[in-house]
């Protein structure tokens, strides 16, 4: 049922190249999930999130500090190795300095016609955040228009907003099938869907979700659900890891990742005269990355609500090694969740993860949250 998503997840570059050939359109690489894709879609550009490949590499050492996260390293390696040679442009929306450094190095050492650093407010809770981002998005829109040679009209923006929102709505509907005693899809399948949504043409992606939604009600999983878990962390597209977790008696039913719910959870208002302001508002108000979640900690109650709504028995806190914003959150977040009776397992991720040592931790965690028969 999810084989198309699996194929898209696996053959991401083939897809983008084929899309480009078919549509004669342009493809932009997005660093971070704060890049306003509505504007790119309005300009008939395919936004693709730049992610790593989970392979050990030795090309980024001269470019990044040793204490920068493995994700930014893996991302930069893809550029330096020429895996995204089809990109016409790249955009970084500011969130953390690690990814910014990967972007800067990419910009300098990888040849592509367009590169844009989009300042994005760190204080998203400030009243100045929306007006500030609005101005920055106007500038970005102009830069994209200059690059493509075509004006982005309000109709174009409406189309961009509609296409993004339709995909977000479809994702929400799919996630509803992960609630309840017998989720209709595994966490691995959901990961194929959510992660691939960050680089597949949104209309095509939405159509495939809609096709699946027609069939999913009748679906019976060929495995027991086991303990229902939630993943929380920064970027996570590690299929091997989620597969291992689900092979030892668990189903991942929800997440708070920027490659998961944080990416699609809220929509852009489609009834505002000022479309750019509507887009700015959406990115300011979306579930926050910890780098922007100050001074009020909005993500803690948001994560707790997700955990409760999806009725999870435990949370796996995933931290990319050296990811400062997430690392700073891990201790208070764990305390907060445990105080709310949600047990947590903390794991530190690298470009590759040690599946054996992680397996025993996950199994012991599952025994801790369940297995009452043993007593």
């Amino acid at each position: 049922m999810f084989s198309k998503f699996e194929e898209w997840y696996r053959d991401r570059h083939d897809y983008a190249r084929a899309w480009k050939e078919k549509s004669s359109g342009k493809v932009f690489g997005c660093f971070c999930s704060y890049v306003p894709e509505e504007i790119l879609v309005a300009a008939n550009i395919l936004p693709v999130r730049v992610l790593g490949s989970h392979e050990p590499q030795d090309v980024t050492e001269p470019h990044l500090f040793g204490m920068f996260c493995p994700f930014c390293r893996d991302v930069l390696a893809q550029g330096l190795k020429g895996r995204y040679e089809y990109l016409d442009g790249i955009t970084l929306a500011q969130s953390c300095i690690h990814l910014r450094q990967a972007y800067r190095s990419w910009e300098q050492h990888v040849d592509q016609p367009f590169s844009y650093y989009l300042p994005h407010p760190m204080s998203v809770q400030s009243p100045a955040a929306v007006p500030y981002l609005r101005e920055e998005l106007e500038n970005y829109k102009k830069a994209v228009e200059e690059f493509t040679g075509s004006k982005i009209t309000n109709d174009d923006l409406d189309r961009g907003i509609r296409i993004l929102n339709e995909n977000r709505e479809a994702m929400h509907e799919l996630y509803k099938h992960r609630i309840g005693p017998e989720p209709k899809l595994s966490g691995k399948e959901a990961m194929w869907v959510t992660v691939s949504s960050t680089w597949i043409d949104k209309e095509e992606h939405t159509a495939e979700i809609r096709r699946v939604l027609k069939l999913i009600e009748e679906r019976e999983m060929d495995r027991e659900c086991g303990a229902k878990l939630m993943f929380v962390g920064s970027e996570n597209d590690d299929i091997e890891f989620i597969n291992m977790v689900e092979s030892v008696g668990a189903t991942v039913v929800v997440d708070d990742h920027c490659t998961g719910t944080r990416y699609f959870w809220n929509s852009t208002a489609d009834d505002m005269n000022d479309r750019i302001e509507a887009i700015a508002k959406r990115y300011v108000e979306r579930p926050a990355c910890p780098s922007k979640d100050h001074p009020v900690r909005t993500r803690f109650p948001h994560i707790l609500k997700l955990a409760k709504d999806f009725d999870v028995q435990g949370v796996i806190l995933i931290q990319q090694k050296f990811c400062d914003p997430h690392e700073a959150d891990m201790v208070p977040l764990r305390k907060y969740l445990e105080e709310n009776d949600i047990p947590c397992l903390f794991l530190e991720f690298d470009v590759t993860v040690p599946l054996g040592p992680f397996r025993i931790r996950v199994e012991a965690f599952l025994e801790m949250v369940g297995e009452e028969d043993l007593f």
Partner: protein
Amino acid sequence: MAKEFWRWKEYNWHDENRDWREGKIVTSGVDVGSVSSQAVIMVDGELYAFSNMRTGSNSPDSAHNAMNWALEDTGMTLDDFNFVVGTGYGRVNVPFADKAITEIACHARGGNYMYGPTVRTILDMGGQDCKAILCDERGKVTNFLMNDKCAAGTGRGMEVFADLLGVSIEDVGDLSFDVEEEPPPVSSTCVVFAKSEAASLLREGWSQSKVLAAYCSAMAHRVFTLLERVGVQKDFAITGGIGKNSGVVKRLEQELGLTALTAKHDTQIAGALGAALFGKALVEKGKGRKK
């Protein structure tokens, strides 16, 4: 052949004063660890027999060898078990096990049996990893933390030191206190780097005891930080082979400001004990093997 100073006592034992045939539930736990393997046999939840030996290169063979040794002279065979639980890193490679359970859960349950229901923190210092485990009054894990990435502060590291210094592993603890004053701990906890550091200290004229004191102290400090992270609750106990090494245990107690509970059983069998007890619980819930 050179003397193998790392060699700890391998042995088996069974309760000659009991007839296992009078028991109702006979279960076994087999802990195939990275360094040592144990098979424990329990009759109605009481320890009846066990073996403790070196793990070989093949997990199924190690499981069989440990089990055969525990069964020796008991008149019991594999068919007499109501349930067998495999644990340890080779837990899925125990051919005759009915279920595999992690050593984290098993050490908590085994620790609860060995030290009583007041134990809340168990430090399992195994062959190649350390686990700080918090548990409730039933021996159910409530939180845990494992060492990451390296084998420092584990049994294998201590074996390497025993060999380097030519001191029998069972004498390391006592000998490490034979110093006029406590030396600073070795700065490296990585087994390989600590070994080269120790070699330089010996060249500088340090005595065996002083080097051992420096290593035991470094090891105690390393596991102390692991315990600090999980949050130590009283009562506290140590399982695994290092639990028998007073050089580490006493230094750790000093850092913690706590005295570890002592057990009448061999601390190395805690995991297999817990596994056998889980087997009994499953049999009582009707989930046992059909005989």
